[in-house]
């Protein structure tokens, strides 16, 4: 590939405009097909039996009665998904999570599944499966699980990353550490130190569409899977590996997606549906209920974080330290590690140290949730930063500006930054009218910063030019936030044609090379790079064809504004050829015209945001109301500004829910008590104010248009911004998320008692 990804500073025609998205009309009219909207003749209904116990050994499973029930076509257990992972520990965990093998590790863990002719028969069949459990002690709290005395979830796990190899197994699977300098010395130079402990409860992404798929396993050993996913190529790899298939024999087609936010990056039901279809010899549709989504998909970590930050009187931070404990569910993960990397990424620090501990608990396996692990770390750090500014007597924005990372700063997690947006977002916030707006009684204002790495990854794109001059763009990154519109704009920009001439689709796994998932805010970043590259390859062919049509040297043909132009005096009599004119003749000049691109999109620019939030707290009930909210974030270049704003608002909305009300509530029995939207409280429309946005564009030097990922950073600052606002409104520092009314009222009452 000879493609130059460097930022070129060009002027844009299509990029930066706001046309209607190609998938919009079908979505608002209900025609768009989501995971559960696929159907096949002869299709069966798949249902999963789940453990009601938080931790139990599976002594015996008897499926004979279920198998005998009329209308039941297949019953499977772990025996039907044999271990083919060949020493791949991470894949073994995925397998065990799809279908418990020897132990049920959480309330909701799949233990068996059936395929039957209808839902009623399938439900009845589940009741006929007899399972003998031996109950084991369980632990669901992250701090409790980290104790030496806690019930062990996996006695083969010894903490990694310690100086000496431990002799006893532990629920702490790994210790990781980041930083530089000497924090001990740094704290010695501090005039003020803030030291606090924080907790955040487990939350779910709350995507409206439950997991859904249709699996069709043919008797020739090939299979099709239609599924709602953020990454159909990854699902293909995982399913093929777990079912012992060659990847090319499994064709996965992604449906429209009703939200993912990281939660649809992991297989749960799909290998089960394939195994059921293989056994039954018929297509099987498997759709999770909301209860199953909460109990048995992948929420984010619950955390417990200690932070210590010291600063001199002049506001210079001298040292910063954090210890972060993140729950992983019952399988090893790297969630605390990511938290430890992001915690202090916004600041220029001489002495910084973060330590992460991954903790196993009897809860569902943690999955990614939008900038995974960063919001909790930011909550703890930005709360302490606010408190420290107050102690010093500095404005919280000025304090952050003084300590903000810059180009050339060595980040707390290692790399040295290029051009970055933390300073500009802070300056924009400082001069934003929101910061000067008056506050009413019982109202408080808070602000906070956030960082996210962003990701690039493997990407493959095809651009085909039809004989009528219209362009089909086939991408392999699932469209979760309007990327088909953005990528069509990019193709139009590069080719010099109108947006309406481009139609983008998400191709299936048999039609395109491998693509990483739409995660890490990579969809538009990486696929736009591949689209630019594919378009440039197509332009090369278009120039060759024009040269052929004119019978001149290709070097004399340039591409400008959608046309081939013959350059040089001797071609002065030649008019220009449009893309369409060249396409019409393509059958006679060498056949179809297409551009392809296969690349690893390196250089995803890091992203920063600063949020401002006003909250009103009812001091008598602890009720909160978000009065005003403003997001300022660096987009590099906003390809389709409406969808960039949508990402900013969406992240803030999810953050508001997380900060104020959302939490997994477990009973003493280790069972989830609120597996539904009634008692797992995501915000409804009327809970939210209009969320204002301000897009900053600090070009990413590693992308031709300067694009940075924008999807995730927007959920990093809200927990902290809201906590700072609530703390200012209520007059008491809130250290436990969510700040539900009972927690706020208890804190206010305790403060009243204390000040008596």
């Amino acid at each position, binding site marked *: 590939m000879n493609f130059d990804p460097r930022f070129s500073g060009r002027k844009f025609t299509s990029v930066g405009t706001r046309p209607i998205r190609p998938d919009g009309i079908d979505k608002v009219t209900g025609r768009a097909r989501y995971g559960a909207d696929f159907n096949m003749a002869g299709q069966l209904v798949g249902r999963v039996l789940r453990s009601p116990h938080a931790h139990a050994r599976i002594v015996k499973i008897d499926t004979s009665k279920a198998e005998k029930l009329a209308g039941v076509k297949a019953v499977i257990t772990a025996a039907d998904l044999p271990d083919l992972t060949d020493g791949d520990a991470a894949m073994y965990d995925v397998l065990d999570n799809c279908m418990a093998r020897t132990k049920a590790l959480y309330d909701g863990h799949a233990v068996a599944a059936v395929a039957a002719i209808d839902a009623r028969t399938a*439900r009845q069949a589940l009741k006929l499966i007899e399972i003998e459990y031996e109950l084991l002690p369980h632990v669901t709290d992250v701090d409790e699980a980290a104790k030496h005395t806690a019930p062990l979830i996996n006695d083969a796990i010894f903490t990694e990353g310690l100086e000496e190899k431990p002799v006893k197994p532990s629920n702490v699977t790994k210790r990781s550490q980041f930083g530089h300098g000497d924090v001990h010395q740094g704290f010695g130079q501090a005039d003020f130190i803030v030291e606090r402990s924080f907790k955040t409860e487990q939350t779910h992404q709350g995507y409206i569409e439950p997991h859904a798929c249709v699996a069709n396993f043919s008797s020739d050993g090939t299979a099709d899977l239609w599924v709602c996913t953020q990454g159909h190529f990854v699902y293909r790899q995982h399913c093929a590996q777990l079912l012992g298939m060659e990847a090319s024999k499994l064709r996965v087609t992604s449906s429209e997606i009703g939200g993912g936010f990281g939660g649809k990056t992991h297989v749960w039901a799909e290998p089960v549906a394939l195994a059921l279809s293989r056994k039954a010899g018929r297509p099987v549709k498997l759709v999770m209920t909301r*209860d199953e989504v909460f109990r048995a998909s992948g929420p984010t970590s619950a955390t417990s974080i200690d932070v210590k930050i010291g600063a001199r009187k002049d506001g210079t931070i001298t040292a910063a330290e954090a210890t972060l404990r993140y729950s992983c569910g019952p399988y090893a993960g790297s969630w605390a590690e990511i938290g430890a990397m992001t915690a202090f990424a916004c600041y220029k620090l001489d002495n910084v140290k973060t330590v992460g501990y991954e903790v196993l608990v009897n809860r569902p396996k943690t999955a990614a949730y939008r900038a995974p692990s960063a919001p909790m770390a930011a909550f703890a750090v930005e709360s302490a930063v606010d408190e420290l500014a107050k102690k010093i007597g500095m404005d919280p924005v000025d304090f952050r500006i003084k300590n903000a990372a810059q180009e050339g700063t060595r980040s707390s997690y290692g790399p040295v930054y290029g051009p970055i947006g933390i300073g500009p977002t802070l300056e924009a916030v400082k001069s934003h009218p929101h910061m000067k707006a008056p506050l009413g009684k019982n109202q408080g204002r808070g602000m906070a910063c956030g960082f996210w790495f962003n990701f690039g990854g493997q990407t493959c794109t095809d651009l085909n030019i039809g004989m009528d001059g219209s362009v089909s763009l086939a991408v392999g990154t699932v469209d979760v936030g309007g990327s088909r519109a953005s990528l069509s704009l990019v193709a139009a920009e590069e080719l010099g044609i109108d947006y309406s001439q481009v139609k983008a689709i998400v191709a299936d796994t048999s039609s395109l090379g491998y693509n990483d998932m739409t995660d890490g805010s990579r969809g538009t970043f990486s696929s736009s790079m591949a689209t630019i590259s594919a378009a440039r390859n197509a332009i090369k062919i278009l120039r060759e064809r024009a040269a052929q049509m004119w019978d001149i040297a290709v070097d004399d043909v340039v591409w400008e504004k959608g046309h081939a132009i013959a350059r040089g005096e001797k071609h002065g009599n030649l008019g220009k050829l449009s893309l369409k004119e060249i396409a019409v003749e393509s059958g006679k000049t060498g056949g179809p015209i297409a551009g392809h691109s296969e690349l690893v999109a390196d250089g995803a620019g890091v992203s920063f945001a600063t949020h401002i939030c006003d909250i009103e707290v009812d001091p*008598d*009930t*602890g*009720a909160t109301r978000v009065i005003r909210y403003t997001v300022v974030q660096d987009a590099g270049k906003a390809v389709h500004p409406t969808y960039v704003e949508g990402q900013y608002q969406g992240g803030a909305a999810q953050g508001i829910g997380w900060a*104020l*009300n959302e939490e997994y*509530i477990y009973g003493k029995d280790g069972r989830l*008590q*609120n597996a539904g939207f*009634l*008692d797992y*409280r995501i*915000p*409804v429309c*009327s*809970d939210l104010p209009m969320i204002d946005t301000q897009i900053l564009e600090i070009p990413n030097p590693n992308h031709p248009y300067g694009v940075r990922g924008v999807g995730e950073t927007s959920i990093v600052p809200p927990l902290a911004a809201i906590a700072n606002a609530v703390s200012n409104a209520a007059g008491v520092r809130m250290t436990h998320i969510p700040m*539900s*009314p*009972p927690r706020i*009222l*208890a804190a206010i*009452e305790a403060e009243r008692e204390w000040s008596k």
Partner: protein
Amino acid sequence: MRYIRPLSIEDAVGQLAGSAGTAAILAGGSDLLVRMKGGFGEPELIVDIKAIDGLSEIRETAEGFSIGAAVPCAVLGENTDLKKAWPGVVEAAKLIGSKQVQGRCTIVGNLCNASPAADSVPALVAAGAKAVVVGPAGRRTIPVQSVPTAPGKTSLAKGEIIEAILLDKREPRSGDAYLRFIPRTEMDIAVVSAGVNLTLDEHGVVKSARVALGAVAATVLLVEEAAEVLIGSRLDEATLERLAKVCAGACRPIDDKRGTIEFRRKVAGVLAQRAATSAYARAGGK
């Protein structure tokens, strides 16, 4: 499962009384269908009462209002006279679920579902509403608070249907109000709630009062001691302070996923104060 849609209340009663297995009454279905879909059991007989003559009407009589068992809560909000006479009852009914749910759900359903957190029940209890019960033995009229006996349980005998809810004609200078605490702004279930109904004398002094609390005990509480605090007062600060204390003391709440005992006690008092203040203003008190 058998579904029937009788045209007379007698037929409905007969079908219910004669059913051998589990039976359920369907009006709006906003509790029943959710339970069935959630896999919490399927009744063998469903009696849909929406086609029964008169059950979908609100009638204004010399004694007051009669609200048929199949009247959706949204319709209560469209009845100007009812809203004027019993604003607290109507605002409670209009808080249930969402706009869509209110187009289906009924206050009789809300009462018979027997949830301690039901929104319309504290308002009805405070209003002194009565339920007209029709059964194999005929018709009887009982106070609404005697219908729910425990979470999910009612005092209704086999074959009995509540035909209508009766609300008295208003005395002058009367007002009622209902408030609930939810962490969201809508689409939620009460963590604590309070309904207050007041009548004032010519001088703005509370002449009679009823105070009901929801979600703080196994059934809605009618707190007579709280009413006594209000009677004879003009809702001065000391009275409201005492009202809060009495209400907090009357609660028998539990710790659960929706709130703590301390939270419910404290907020029950706060809501009672606020509902009383609102009812007082509606009654013309200053």
